[in-house]
Structure formats: structure tokens, C-alpha cells
């Protein structure tokens, strides 16, 4: 049998709107609006952080004050008032740091149930460990005990700082330094929570790990930070999902993800990003400015990014891999959809340092409605990267006459034996294809969805099966109303 994905549910296709747009009434602890050293001290204090981390935050903040927002990206949006954002929002917990699901606020649990992520069920049935992050904090992490038996540490970032400072401190900022860029630096100053994962030498993580990010409170920003370390020969697959309520103002999400793979280690990081994209007129939606980078530190290590980006008003992210170890491998598989008035400027950076390093880039960009989609990718092969290879395939699909697709590949090759290949195509969902499907009885909407899913197949097959189905469904829902 072929790896055909299950049929799309037509009834689900009929549910028109962004279905995660509800807001939950959760008692929330908020920091005062705006950013100052006091606010940073408050965040650090609330999290009972050691002094070294507070100092690190403050260094980032001072550096950030001298930085300006980047303007090179191909997206347009009104000015962000950084003084008008609440940098810390946490659901109030009856008890501090719930150790089991029973201790989680029932409202929070109800919210996750409504999102289709029943934390209890995840624990019982699916065998996927979930770290649930609401606004600025992690509310619960499932399966910790079972993971601990295998030696895997999977917990919220705050908890890791308290319980495993020796593992956090050497790696924090080692891939994305606090001076990296405007948004990463802002994150370094104010990051509140996120996930931490450590897989020790030789361990194959016994289950999929995932973090579910939810922005709930109004007027807040979400600044989470995730760090994954895989020691020699370790293997881990990690997935993140994101949603937010429907609101007319824009909310800022500026996350940082750092991955470190030592010799022979393998990290697979998948994202299904479905932040609120704004309405059909382009009002509201999340500004998603994210810095994700992995470092293949050891020989023969591998880092693979797979992303399905269907949400956010603006997406700005370039998950990259620094290929240091000899023969290390970096991969980037991406589907980015821009419908309505969404704008995406996304791609990857592959920096080849070690000998015989390899990278593969497959980018599928879909533009519909007034959507604008930009692929921006850097393939850099240093003088030391003898025999390095890259293959890039960059396809754009246009639906309707008012959208746009743009491609900006940057290739720098410094070693004569290194090779970089770049292929790019732009196509439309053709009238021929639609008519052919319709003549066979398939509705125009379903046909479009099928054609788009076919276009994305190379990327979807990189996702864990249940998430591939989820991604397919999301894409169909996001495409509704873009046809005809």
C-alpha cells in the first residue's frame, strides 16, 4: 500500500472559521505593562531564578535597548509598541508547580480539552508526553516519571533551571546567543517558560515529546524558550503545536529554540504552527517572530526541522542548522501557507563548517487570497567545509490572482569541493486540474485541498503520522473560502 493519508472530513471542511479562537476565563497573574529592568527582575523573582540567570537577562535587555527592529524582511505591519505589551502572564495555580494532572486548574484542563488536546487522554492513550504552556508558564508536563526511567529529562524550562542548572547553564545561549537578533535578544531578556529536554548518552527517547503553546491572556506577548540537548548517540523526536484566541489586536510571539546534538545524536523537531491568523480583512492575528537554530556539534549528528506554518498574521522564522561535526546532516522541510492577508517570510539557514556535511532543504510555499509568501534561505559553506553538499528545492503554489510568492536564496560557497544545488518552481492550481477532479465528482474545495496536499506531500511524510493528519486537516481548513 502507498502511504496515502486518510480522507479529509468534509463536515470538518464546512466549519468555516478559525476554530481555536475562543478565550478561556482563567485567573491570571500579570506583570505591569511595558519593559524595564524592574519587570525583568520581577519575572526572574517570580521564577525564583539564580542570580546568573537574572544577570544574563539583564545583559540581554541592555543590549536590546541599543538594537532596532529588522526591516529587511518582506512583510509589512504597523509599528509594535513594546511599552504596551504585558511581558508576563501566568494562570494562577492553586498549588505551585502541579505534580500531577489532578492538581491542574480545571479551567486550564477544560481549555486543553476544547483544543482537542485532552491532557489526561494524552497521558493515558496516545503515549505522547506533553508539556502544556499557557501564556508565560508551563502548566503541566505529562509522562515525566516514565521518561525519567529512561534517563530523559523533559520538563518546563523554569523547572529545569531549578533542578538541573548544571545542564541548562552551559547550553543556554550556546546556539542562539543573547545578542543574536532583535527578537531573540528581547526573548533572552523576558523569556518566561518553555520546554527543556535532555536525552543522555546512547538513549533513544521512548516516546514522542511535544509542547503545546497556548496564548490566552489579552495584551500579552509570549516569549518562550526551548532547549533540547541530545548527548552522544541519543535520539529524540519533538513536536510543538500552537494556538491563540481570536482578538482584533495583534499579539507578539517571540520565541527562541536551541538544539544541541552531540556525536552521532539525532534530533527531529516538528512544528505545527496555527496561531490565530487574523480575520479575512487582515485584522488581528499573531506576529510570530521566532529564532530557531540547531547545532550539530558532534560528528555524524543530525538535526531535522519540519514545519507546517498555517497560522499567524506574520511569520518570520528561519530554523537553521550549524553543521560543525564532520559528516553531520541538517534538514529543513517546510510548508508555509499564507491565506487572506497573512504574510510569511520564512526559510532556513544551513551553515556548513565541518567536512562532508550535508543539508537538504525542501520548501513548499502556498499563497492564497491576498497572502504573500517569501522563501528566504541561506546556504553557507565555509572554507573548512570540504566536500559539503546541499540540495535545495523550493516550490511555490499560487491560488487565485491576488496573492504572491517570492524566493530569495542566498548561497555562499568557500570550498572548491563543496556543492550546492538549488531548484525552484512556481505553479498555480490550474483550471485543468480542478475541472478534471470535478468531472470525477470531487467538489472544487475538496479538489483544491487535495491538489495542495499533493503539493506538500514531500514535507508531510516527514511528520509523525498523527501530526501529518492534523497538518493536512489544518491546511484544508485554512484554505476554505480561498477558492472561487
Amino acid at each position, binding site marked *: 500500500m502507498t502511504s496515502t493519508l486518510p480522507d479529509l472530513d468534509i463536515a470538518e471542511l464546512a466549519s468555516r472559521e478559525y476554530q481555536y479562537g475562543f478565550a478561556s476565563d482563567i485567573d491570571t497573574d500579570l506583570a505591569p505593562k511595558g519593559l524595564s529592568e524592574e519587570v525583568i527582575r520581577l519575572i526572574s523573582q517570580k521564577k525564583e531564578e539564580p542570580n546568573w540567570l537574572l544577570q544574563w537577562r539583564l545583559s540581554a535587555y541592555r543590549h536590546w535597548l541599543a538594537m532596532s527592529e529588522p526591516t529587511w524582511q518582506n512583510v509589512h505591519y504597523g509599528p509594535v509598541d513594546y511599552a504596551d505589551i504585558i511581558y508576563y502572564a501566568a494562570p494562577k495555580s492553586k498549588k505551585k508547580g502541579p505534580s500531577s494532572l489532578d492538581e491542574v486548574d480545571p479551567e486550564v484542563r477544560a481549555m486543553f480539552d476544547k483544543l482537542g488536546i485532552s491532557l489526561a487522554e494524552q497521558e493515558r492513550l496516545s503515549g505522547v508526553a506533553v508539556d502544556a504552556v499557557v501564556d508565560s508558564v508551563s502548566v503541566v508536563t505529562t509522562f515525566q516519571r516514565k521518561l525519567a526511567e529512561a534517563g530523559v529529562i523533559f520538563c518546563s524550562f523554569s523547572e529545569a533551571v531549578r533542578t538541573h542548572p548544571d545542564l541548562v547553564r552551559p547550553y543556554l545561549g550556546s546556539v542562539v546567543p543573547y545578542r543574536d537578533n532583535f527578537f531573540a535578544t528581547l526573548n533572552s531578556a523576558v523569556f518566561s517558560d518553555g520546554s527543556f529536554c535532555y536525552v543522555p548518552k546512547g538513549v533513544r527517547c521512548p516516546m514522542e515529546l511535544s509542547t503545546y503553546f497556548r496564548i490566552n491572556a489579552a495584551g500579552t506577548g509570549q516569549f518562550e524558550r526551548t532547549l533540547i540537548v541530545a548527548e552522544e548517540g541519543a535520539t529524540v523526536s519533538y513536536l510543538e503545536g500552537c494556538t491563540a484566541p481570536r482578538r482584533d489586536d495583534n499579539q507578539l510571539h517571540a520565541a527562541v529554540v536551541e538544539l544541541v546534538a552531540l556525536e552521532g545524536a539525532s534530533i527531529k523537531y516538528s512544528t505545527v504552527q496555527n496561531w490565530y491568523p487574523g480575520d479575512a480583512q487582515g485584522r488581528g492575528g499573531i506576529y510570530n517572530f521566532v529564532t530557531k537554530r540547531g547545532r550539530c556539534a558532534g560528528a555524524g549528528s543530525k538535526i531535522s526541522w519540519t514545519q507546517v506554518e498555517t497560522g499567524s498574521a506574520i511569520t518570520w522564522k528561519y530554523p537553521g542548522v550549524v553543521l560543525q561535526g564532520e559528516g553531520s546532516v541538517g534538514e529543513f522541510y517546510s510548508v508555509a501557507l499564507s491565506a487572506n492577508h497573512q504574510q510569511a517570510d520564512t526559510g532556513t539557514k544551513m551553515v556548513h563548517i565541518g567536512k562532508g556535511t550535508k543539508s537538504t532543504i525542501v520548501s513548499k510555499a502556498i499563497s492564497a487570497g491576498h497572502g504573500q509568501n517569501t522563501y528566504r534561505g541561506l546556504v553557507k559553506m565555509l572554507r573548512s567545509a570540504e566536500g559539503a553538499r546541499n540540495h535545495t528545492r523550493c516550490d511555490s503554489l499560487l491560488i487565485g490572482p491576488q496573492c504572491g510568492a517570492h524566493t530569495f536564496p542566498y548561497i555562499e560557497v568557500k570550498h572548491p569541493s563543496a556543492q550546492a544545488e538549488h531548484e525552484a518552481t512556481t505553479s498555480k492550481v490550474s483550471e485543468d486540474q480542478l475541472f478534471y477532479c470535478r*468531472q470525477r465528482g*470531487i467538489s472544487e474545495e475538496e479538489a483544491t485541498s487535495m491538489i495542495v496536499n*499533493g503539493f506538500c506531500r514531500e514535507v508531510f511524510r516527514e511528520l509523525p503520522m498523527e501530526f501529518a493528519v492534523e497538518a493536512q486537516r489544518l491546511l484544508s481548513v485554512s484554505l476554505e473560502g480561498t477558492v472561487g
Partner: protein
Amino acid sequence: MLAVQNLHAGISGKEILRGLSMDVQAGQVHAVMGPNGSGKSTLAHVLAGRGPYEVTGGQALFDGADLLGMAPEERAAAGLFLAFQHPVEIPGVANMYFLRTALNSLRHQRGQSEVSPGEFLRQLEDKVSQVGLDRTLLQRSVNEGFSGGEKKRNEVLQMALFEPRLAILDETDSGLDIDALRVVADGVEALRGPQRAFVIITHHQRLLEYVRPDRVHVLSGGRIVRSAGPELASELEANGYGEARTGRSTDELARAGASR
């Protein structure tokens, strides 16, 4: 079953069908022949509901219902099938997945339940053997990289699987070798029965040596200029379309096309 009356249709403001009428009864096979540019493919596409074509007059009834008022997928659900002259490629969509989606869409529109994957495979297996399609083509993307003959076999496979009440074959025989031509003919013969009808649009009478039509029509200048029994096909082969239309055999262009 199909009653077309005084149909006028065209594309981009240019009229191509100029008052076409034809009547197809259940159980019949009709052949529509004519030179290039006579409107054969336009007829096929207008009956199937292709967007860019505009109907400017006349009507077409399918089992008494207004065919021209239906969306293409509704026409398909009503039992109309078009075998394409140029089957379309859909990259990344596995042929088998496409076939099952289409079959279930048809059933869904008809208020029938979906076929189970097992039942679907069984049905498909039968039809694949019947049309002699290379099985690896089921796993490949729809029509992508198929040879001309494979694409036509894939059309016949779909016809066999969907079991339409009215199948329109738009020059399905063009460019086929003798084996592939037999596959098309056998596909028609296998489905042929008192409940079904076929409209075979063709440029030459080769296919009609294998599928004996009940009626043969000559299309010229956007209307049917002559209709008769199967003997008309042989006559056209011998004398060309000029003869059929005007009583003179001087239409060299048409003749060149007809005997290609």
C-alpha cells in the same frame, strides 16, 4: 437519456456550437465524427460543464433534468463521465487515493455510504486486470509521467470503476496503438448495456471497427449535418468529410485529417 436541442456555445465570445441537436437513448452508442475545428471537443466539454465555455442558447436534458444548470461534480454524480483527450497530471496525489476519493465523492452525492478500503481494493483489482493497467501506476501521482497510452488506460480504468450511465469519450482513441485501442473498445463493450449510453467523439473510424455504433453523426461548423447508421463511418473513411457535408469530396484539409 440525453437530449440536446439547438445548443449554441462558445469560448471568449467566439461561437463554436451553432445550433447542435442530438438525441441519445439508453442502450445506444453514438459516434460523433468531424474534421478538426468542427466543435467536437467543445461539445464534450460543454456537456461536462467546463468553466470557460459559455452556453448562449439551447438546452441539454439528461434524464429529463437540465444538465447545463448543474455543476460539473453534480453532472458526474448524475452519471455523466468524460474520458479526457488530454488527461491532467496532479503531482503528489497518489492515483489510488484519487480514485477512492472520487468514487466516494460520487457515492456521497448520491446519498450512498463510502466504500470500505477493502471493498475498494477488491473492485479496483478487478478493473485493473480488465484494462491491463500496470499496477505500479496506482501508487504514482495521477497521470504524472504516464505515457500517452497509460493515460488513456487510466481513463478507461476510471470509466470502468465509476460505471457511468453516460460516458463521453473525447478522442480517447487518438494516438493509440492497436492494443491500447482494443483496451478502449473492450472498456466500452464491457459496460455496454440497456441502461447505459456512450458518445464516442473521434476523428477517424478506427475505434469504430471494434465498437459498433448505433448511430454516427457528422459534426461540421458547429452542428450535426448528417446522421445515419454505422455504415456512415466507413463511408466517411472512404470519402472524407467534404463528401458527407456537401456531397462533394473536395475538402482536402478534412480528408487529410480524416485519413491521418
